[in-house]
C-alpha cells in the first residue's frame, strides 16, 4: 500500500474529491504547521489558532473547487492570507474582550523557552505591519519564491521584491539595537 506521505498533493485532492476523507487528513498533516506559522506571524498567537482552524474548515469546504491552475501550496497559502486579512478586519471592529488582555502571558511564556536571539527576532518581526510580517514569513521561513508570492497576492514580481526588500530593511533596523543591547552585561 502506498504511504500517504509519499502521495503528491494532486492525487490526494483527487482522492478526497472522490470521497476519501483520509486524503484530507494527510493534507492537513502536511500543511498544518505551515498554515499555522503564517497565521501566527501575521496575527500573533491569539488569532493564529482561530485563523488556522478557519483555513482548514474553508479548505475542507472548497477543495473541490481547486482546479490546479496554481500549485496547491500556493493556493492554500493564498487562502490563509485571505483568512488572516479577514481576521484582522473582524478583530479591528469588535470590542476588546478579556482574551485580548490575556494573550500576552501565554506568548511570553512560550517565548521564554526560546533562545534570546530568536525572541528578539520574533519580537522585531511582530513590530512590523501584518502584511510585511506575512511576506517575510512566506519568503524567508516558508521558502516561497518572489514569483510564487506574487501569484498569491495577485501583483507583479517586482512589487513583491520591493515590498520584501523594504520589510527586511525594517526588520534589520529593529534587530540592530536589540543585538547591541544583548551584548551588554
Amino acid at each position: 500500500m502506498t504511504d500517504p506521505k509519499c502521495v503528491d498533493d494532486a492525487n490526494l485532492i483527487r482522492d478526497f474529491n472522490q470521497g476519501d476523507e483520509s486524503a484530507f487528513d494527510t493534507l492537513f498533516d502536511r500543511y498544518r504547521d505551515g498554515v499555522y506559522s503564517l497565521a501566527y506571524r501575521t496575527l500573533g498567537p491569539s488569532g493564529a489558532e482561530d485563523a488556522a482552524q478557519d483555513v482548514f474548515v474553508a479548505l475542507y469546504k472548497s477543495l473541490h473547487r481547486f482546479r490546479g491552475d496554481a500549485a496547491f501550496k500556493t493556493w492554500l497559502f493564498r487562502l490563509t492570507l485571505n483568512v488572516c486579512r479577514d481576521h484582522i478586519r473582524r478583530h479591528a471592529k469588535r470590542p476588546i474582550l478579556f482574551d485580548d488582555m490575556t494573550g500576552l502571558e501565554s506568548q511570553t511564556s512560550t517565548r521564554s523557552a526560546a533562545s534570546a536571539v530568536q525572541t528578539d527576532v520574533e519580537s522585531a518581526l511582530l513590530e512590523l505591519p501584518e502584511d510585511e510580517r506575512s511576506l517575510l514569513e512566506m519568503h524567508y521561513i516558508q521558502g516561497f519564491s518572489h514569483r510564487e508570492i506574487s501569484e498569491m497576492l495577485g501583483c507583479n514580481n517586482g512589487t513583491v521584491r520591493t515590498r520584501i526588500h523594504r520589510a527586511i530593511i525594517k526588520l534589520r533596523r529593529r534587530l540592530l539595537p536589540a543585538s547591541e543591547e544583548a551584548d551588554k552585561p
Partner: protein
Amino acid sequence: MTCEQAQAQFTAFLSGEMAGDDANDVTAHIRQCPACAADLESMRQAAAALKGLGVRAMPEPVVSRVRRELARHRKPTSRPFLSGLRVWAVVGTVPVLAALVVGLSLFRQQPSTAAEIIARAESAMTKLSSWHFRYRDTRINGKRVEVSYADEWYRAPDMRRQQEEFSGTHSKPPQVKLIRGNEELLYVPKQRIANFRALTEKDQKNEARSYERRSLQPPYAATQHHMMREVRLVGTERVLGRLCDVITGRIGAAFRVRIAVDRETGIPLRTTWSWEHARGTSEMVVFEPNKKIGDDVFQIKLPSDVTVIRGPVFGPHDFHLVDLNHLKNPSETESHMSLALSALTGSALISVCEPTYIPHGYMLQGVFPDFTYVKPDRRGFSYSLSLDIYYINPKTSGTLLLIQSVERLFDGAEAVTVHGVEGRISSFTSPYPYSILTWIEGGVHFSLIGSEISRPELLKVADGMKPLRSLIPGLSTGPTWRITAEAVNSRKDEYVAVTPDAVKNRFRSLRVHGATVTRAGHDHIVITAHAKDPDLIVRSVLSPGFVSFVPVTKAFIAGRYVPGAGALITQDQVQFRDRQGLRLGKPLFLDVRLRYSFYAARLGKHEGSRANDVLAIIIDDRRFVGRVTKGELIRGTRIGPIPADVAAILETGPLPARLKVISKERL
C-alpha cells in the same frame, strides 16, 4: 551599477532569484563598494536570523481542536457506513440493532444542542412579554466586587428599567436606566455627572455598558455566543427551582464560561466564568418571566442628587461594522458621523479630514472611531485609534474605506502624489479587486481602500480630502502619540477605572518594558513603567481594591513581580507597602487614570530629544498641562513654562494638588 541599483537587488540576490548577468553585476559592485558589502552582509544576517525562526509548529491542542472542528463539518460518506457493516457482521445483528435503538432514543431525549440553546437564549428576551429579574453581581474568588446587584424590569414592547446599586466602602447611589420607546433616560448621581457629561456619546455608551461588561451578567454572556468556542452541553441543574441546561465554552484563549440556561425561557440564570487565577459567578436571585408589571415600576421617584441624561437608545452592537439603520436614516448617519468625528478629535487630537468628493453612487455607510489594532509584542500591546469612514455603492457593491490613523496600517508598492506629498498605492486581485492608497499628511496616516473603484477615482477622492478641524494648532503634525496611565486618589471618585473599553478608546500605543514602584502611600501607589523606548513612561497610580485592567505587562508591585499584571490585577495580587516597607494590607480600591502625552521627541524637528532630555507635553483633553524634563517648552505651541507642580508629575514625591482639579474636568 550604482549603490542604489545594487541595494534594490539585494533581496533577489540573496535568495538566488537573479539572472546570471544581473547577479554578476551585483557581485562586481559589492567587491568595489565596502558600504554596500556591509549592507548586504547585514541583510544576509537579518535573513539568516529570520530563517532561524523556522516554521512554527501547530501546537497539539490546536491540532486536536481543528480536527474536532473538521469532524463537525464532515459529511457522512460511504466509508463509515461500510465500516459499520463490517462491525455489524462481527458482533451480530441483534445487539447492534438494540444499541442503535437505545442510541436514537437517547438522542431524542436531549433537549437540543448547545448551539441551539445559546441561540435560543439570545432571542429569548424578545419572546417574553415581560420579566423582572435581579442578579447578584460578579463574585471574584468569592468576593463581591463593585455592583452589589442589578434589577431589571421589562415590559413588551419597549419599556425597560434597569437599576444598579453599588456596594463596598465606595457605596454610591443607584444608577437607573429607563428606556421608553426610542428614548433612553439615564439617571446618574450628581457626584458622577460632571464626569459623565464630559464623555462623548460614544463614551457614554461604553460607560453605561461597562457595568454589564465587568459583571458579565448572564444576558451579556449569552450574547457572546458567536464568540464562544468549544461550546458543549454538559448537563442540567436547577437554579431558582427552574430546570436549566448547562453549557460550557470559552471566549478567546483563556476566558471560560459556564452558563445555566433556563429551559423554559432560554434566559441564562447563572453564569460562572474563570480567567487565569480569577473565578466569578453571576447569579440571578429573582427571576419572574411574563409577570404583570405595573406602570408604577416605570415611574421612578428620583433621589434629589441625580441628574437625567436623555439620549437615543444604545444598541448592543451599534458600533459594529454593518448597521443597516445607517442606510435607512441618513440624518442619524450624519449625527453618528459628527459624534464620531468629535469623539476622535476630542481624544486623539489629530487633524481629522473628510472627503469632499465621493464617486457617483456611493453613500455613507458608517463612521467608526474605535478602530482598535491589537498588536502583541514582547513588551506589551499596541493600540492605535483611528477613524474609519465607510462608503458603499449599493448597486455595484463597491466599497470605499477611509482610515485615518496615527499608525501606518498599510504600505504601498508604487509611488503617487497626493496633495503634493508622496503616497503609495497597491492593487490586489484577491480576494476581490481592490486598491489601497496610503499617504501621510499632517502627522496622520491615511489609508484609502476601494473596491470596484478605479485608481484615478481613488486618487480623486484622496485629493478631495479636507481637514475637518484641528484642535491643537502646531501639534497636529505630530506623528506619534504616547499615553501615560495614571490614577489619583480614587476614593474621592474623581476617576473611572480602566475598562477594556477605556483601553480601547484611550490608549494609543503602549510598550512597557518594566516597572518599578516610585511612590507608595496609604491611599495610593504609583507604578512607573519604563519603556525601552526612552520617551515613553507609563504610570499607574493604584489605590486599593478594585479590579482593573492595567496594561502594564511586567509590573513589579511593591517589589513583587506579578506575571500577567498587565491583564488583570485583582486585590489578591496587589500588595501594598509603605515607604518603610510595611505591608498595608489588602487593597480596597484600584483605579487608573489615563492621560495623553505627546512627546516632541517624535516630531523629528526638535533635536536633542533623547533619553535624559526628553521634551514632553502632556495633553489633558483639550488643554495643555504638560511638562518638560529640561528647558522650556516646544516652540510653536501655546504652552508657556511648565508649572513646577505639573513638572513633578512623573517624579517621586507627593502628588501635585493641581492634578485633582484637572481630573474633575475629565472622566
